[in-house]
């Protein structure tokens, strides 16, 4: 009798604990560029579940057909979601402060987008400095 109750309490505790934190990640806050709009291109729940589908389709459309619409482009994501911290540097894609890595590191979902793609906006102070040096 007590054993069953104990299991029930444990299960309820586990469910509440994990569904609230590790699945929805609502506790993660990010530094997002408010100036470029108060909304993402789709509602948050759709973006959380399907952003990879949008990005996959966009990558095919762009590379194969030459369609360069901004809405679902990875550069568009980066320009808005990756913002410099107080000291003017952009977060590394290897750290959890990077918008994409924040969830992917927690979910242990390794993505290879940034092996090739830029992980920060182009009007980066550092890159501009490097170009002016050359």
């Amino acid at each position: 009798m007590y054993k069953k109750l104990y299991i029930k309490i444990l299960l309820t505790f586990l469910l509440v604990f994990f569904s609230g934190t590790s699945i929805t990640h609502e506790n993660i806050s990010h530094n997002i560029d408010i100036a470029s709009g108060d909304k993402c291109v789709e509602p948050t729940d759709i973006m959380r579940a399907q952003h990879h589908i949008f990005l996959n389709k966009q990558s095919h459309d762009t590379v194969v057909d030459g369609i360069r619409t901004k809405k679902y482009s990875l550069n568009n994501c980066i320009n808005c979601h990756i913002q410099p911290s107080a000291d003017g540097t952009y977060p590394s894609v290897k750290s959890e402060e990077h918008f994409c890595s924040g969830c992917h590191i927690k979910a242990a979902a390794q993505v290879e987008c940034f092996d090739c793609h830029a992980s920060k906006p182009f009007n980066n102070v550092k890159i501009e400095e490097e170009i002016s040096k050359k």
Partner: protein
Amino acid sequence: MKKYEIKLDRRNFLKNSVSVGLVTIAPGVFLQEIAHGRSLDEPASDKIRWGMLIDTNQCTEDCDACVTACNEEHGIEDFGRPTTDTQWIRKLNLTNEFTGKKYSLPIMCQHCENPPCVDVCPTGASFKRADGIVLVNKHTCIGCRYCMMSCPYKARSFVHENLENQLPHAPRGKGCVESCNLCVHKIDNGENNTACAEACVKDGHQAILFGDLNDPKSEISKQLSEFGAKEIRSDLGLNTAVRYRGI
């Protein structure tokens, strides 16, 4: 059911004839727009075939403005390892043994109509776009390098190094093969010119001319029909989009 009556008085007749006139003019104007700057949501059209004409008489041996411009445009770094470093354009200096005449010319992907790199690619990553540009889809490239072996122009490079700080318009990474993409990002944004051609003009040589080979009114087509140009290894029947004059 309501019946629509059309009054054919003088006023309506004039109004209709003007609108018909506008419709018939519009398609011509619209076609012109497609050829020179399509909108961002439109796919590349097979009515266009992009190509380049290189005048080797204008190209000088000591100039490598096109190579530098290409490297800057696509963020290609030099790791100091010439055997494996990425190279989209290379300058070739030749001397005719008999006459002693010296030639200097840039060699890059020749954007063949029948590209051998596309034939041999096991994953379909090497492909020809509708407007004739031969590209590598790096999402599907497995880095097997068959395309590099099949290319008679030695135009492709394999990325051997870990790369950082890539440019947003030029995604590049270790383990993929890449080559000249005719500045596809510039074409898609309607600029319709390449970094190498711009740099060549800026340097005062005007050896590289970029344009639409299918459009008889384009500068490149006019020059090709007037002066002609050769393709390198024409015996292979690849029908390249990059042609050379003066060799």
